[in-house]
């Protein structure tokens, strides 16, 4: 049944572009191509902003709303990141500021080691992602400018350390927690980097998109473009587009979320069903969204007080650990386990419950993305213009003169009331997307009885949606201390 490599390659590219005759290609838009291919104009300003955040975080006022590190770091950058994923793709990785010092370090010290095989999956990145969520709550990073600055410095140090020692791009592919978040979320993005014409790839012998050319390196996350399927592991760096001598690479419009229901063998990634780490990423992405939102509403303090009194402790770290274990381990295991056990009864081939849960866990990613969008979108929209007075104040403090004018402290954003329908809409849209993807997975896994296979997952989606709506309807109550 195995097709010849060239036939397989042709089939892949044809599938990528089969969804419509001529989908929108951002790299074919006049003027946009050269803009997107020159990455430095995006990375440079972001690196400058990062440096400003670090310096202001350490040396500026240690008041979160008056400091650029906490304001831009936790309000604007997170909001813009998810908006970028929603409207385009992995825009943050495309403009990643960490790559500039990393490339500099590689000029000074060329990496020689291979990233250990045992660490090649997503486990390290997932652990760091959970770690950042935990530290964010534990140390109240949202209220700590210097803590936020230390996190940024740590991030830069880790990038340089990992990528100066190891070949390829292990940091992006396996370590970076923001990257793993982006990879998971970009399955919902409306654009994908693909080969434009299958015939060109079929006749190409140089494979510069992977191997690189004299003018540009090839894909560092090992995505061979003709066999690439979906946005997983794609940083939108466009090294492939720069290296391709045939100008055969496009950023093409596609159906958001469709890749989550498919199980094709993709270059550099493999099959989703053979990657338990990707299922784990999808699960942590979804349930982490609920956990992160739960951390900012008032009922969390009641729960934490109860856990503390049950444990007989006043250690916030210990209480948070229990909360994280409950919501990121126990809850997903129970919910996914029970749902998968019911769903598998409708399947002709009785896979283990864990395998069924892993397959369907990808279907919850749209809902998870909806929750992240609602949460981060809330902060972004309600605090949209707050960076203006803080920047004015920072410049005035630094130079002793109000070069940007007197701080306009009345600059805010939309009211919480105006944002609430948008929040609810994002949750609803995420849930609808999940239902669509889960249905497609059910159709594939149980072609004879798709409704029976889908029903328990549909119920789970509705339950999670209800939880998310309840969370977003709660009054926000950001507190640093809950044990008094």
């Amino acid at each position: 049944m195995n097709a010849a490599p060239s036939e397989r390659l042709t089939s892949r590219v044809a599938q990528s572009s089969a969804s419509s005759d001529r989908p929108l290609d951002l790299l074919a838009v006049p003027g946009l191509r050269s803009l997107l291919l020159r990455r430095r104009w995006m990375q440079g300003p972001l690196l400058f902003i990062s440096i400003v955040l670090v310096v202001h975080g350490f040396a500026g006022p240690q008041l979160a709303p008056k400091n650029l590190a906490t304001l831009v770091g936790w309000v604007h950058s997170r909001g813009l990141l998810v908006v970028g994923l929603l409207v385009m793709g992995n825009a943050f990785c495309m403009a990643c500021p960490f790559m500039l010092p990393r490339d500099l370090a590689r000029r000074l010290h060329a990496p020689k080691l291979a990233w250990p095989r045992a660490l090649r999956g997503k486990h390290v990145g997932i652990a760091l992602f959970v770690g950042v969520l935990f530290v964010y709550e534990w140390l109240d990073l949202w209220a700590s400018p210097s803590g936020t600055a230390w996190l940024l410095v740590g991030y830069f140090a880790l990038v340089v350390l990992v990528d100066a020692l190891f070949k390829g791009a292990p940091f992006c592919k396996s370590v970076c927690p923001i990257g793993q978040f982006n990879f998971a979320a970009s399955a919902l993005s409306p654009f994908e980097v693909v080969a434009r014409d299958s015939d060109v790839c079929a006749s190409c012998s140089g494979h510069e998109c992977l191997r690189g050319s004299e003018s540009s390196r090839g894909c560092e996350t090992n995505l061979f473009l003709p066999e690439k399927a979906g946005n997983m592991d794609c940083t939108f760096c466009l090294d492939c587009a720069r290296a391709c001598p045939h100008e055969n690479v496009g950023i093409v419009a596609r159906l958001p979320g469709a890749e989550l229901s498919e199980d094709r063998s993709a270059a550099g990634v493999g099959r989703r069903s053979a990657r338990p780490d990707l299922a784990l990423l999808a699960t942590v992405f979804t349930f982490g969204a609920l956990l992160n939102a739960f951390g900012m509403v008032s009922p969390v303090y009641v729960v934490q007080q109860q856990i503390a009194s049950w444990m007989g402790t006043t250690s916030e770290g210990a209480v948070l650990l229990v909360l994280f274990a409950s919501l990121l381990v126990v809850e997903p295991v129970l919910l996914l386990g029970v749902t998968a056990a019911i769903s598998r009864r409708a399947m002709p081939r009785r896979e283990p419950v864990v395998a069924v849960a892993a397959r369907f866990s990808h279907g919850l990613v749209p809902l998870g993305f909806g929750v992240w969008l609602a949460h981060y979108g809330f902060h972004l929209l309600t605090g949209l213009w707050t960076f203006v007075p803080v920047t004015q104040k920072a410049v005035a403090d630094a130079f002793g003169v109000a070069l940007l004018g007197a701080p306009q402290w009345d600059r805010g954003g939309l009211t919480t009331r105006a944002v609430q329908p948008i929040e609810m809409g994002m949750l609803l849209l995420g849930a609808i997307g999940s239902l669509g993807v889960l249905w497609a997975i059910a159709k594939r896994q149980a072609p004879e009885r798709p409704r029976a296979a889908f029903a328990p997952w549909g119920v789970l989606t509705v339950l999670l949606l209800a939880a998310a709506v309840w969370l977003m309807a709660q009054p926000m109550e950001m507190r640093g201390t809950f044990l008094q």
Partner: protein
Amino acid sequence: MTSVVPAAGNTGGVRRAGSPAGRAWRAWPVAVIALAALLSACSGGGTGDGGVAATFRFDPQPPSVGKAHFELRLVSPQGEAVAGATVAVEANMNHAGMQPTFADLSEDVPGRYVGDVEFTMGGDWFLLMNATLADGRKIERKLDVPGVRSK
């Protein structure tokens, strides 16, 4: 419940680090050091307030979302009421990205300044109190208001 507040916070700022592209990217460590040095020079600084203590209370206590009556007492190191000051407060959430609210306080009895402070959301807040004393001295205080209720 009454809170006594220690010394004032610091201030800070940023300055341009230089061109981000091309050759300049090699110079970013230098830019970081230069920025840090400049900002360190700008931050901190005493207020020269002669040890005036500020105590405050809210009604209701703890305050809830909405307007809360705020009462501030300024007391000299000798325990005397500091009268005749002009006092304003700026209320901020501990979480970044929330618009601050402002209130001017009026003196109802010597050394006691009152006004309404608006809290737009539940959670931890702090007040930045700025006072100009009768003799022209200026004092600043950060007054923590943890656990504003969401109703």
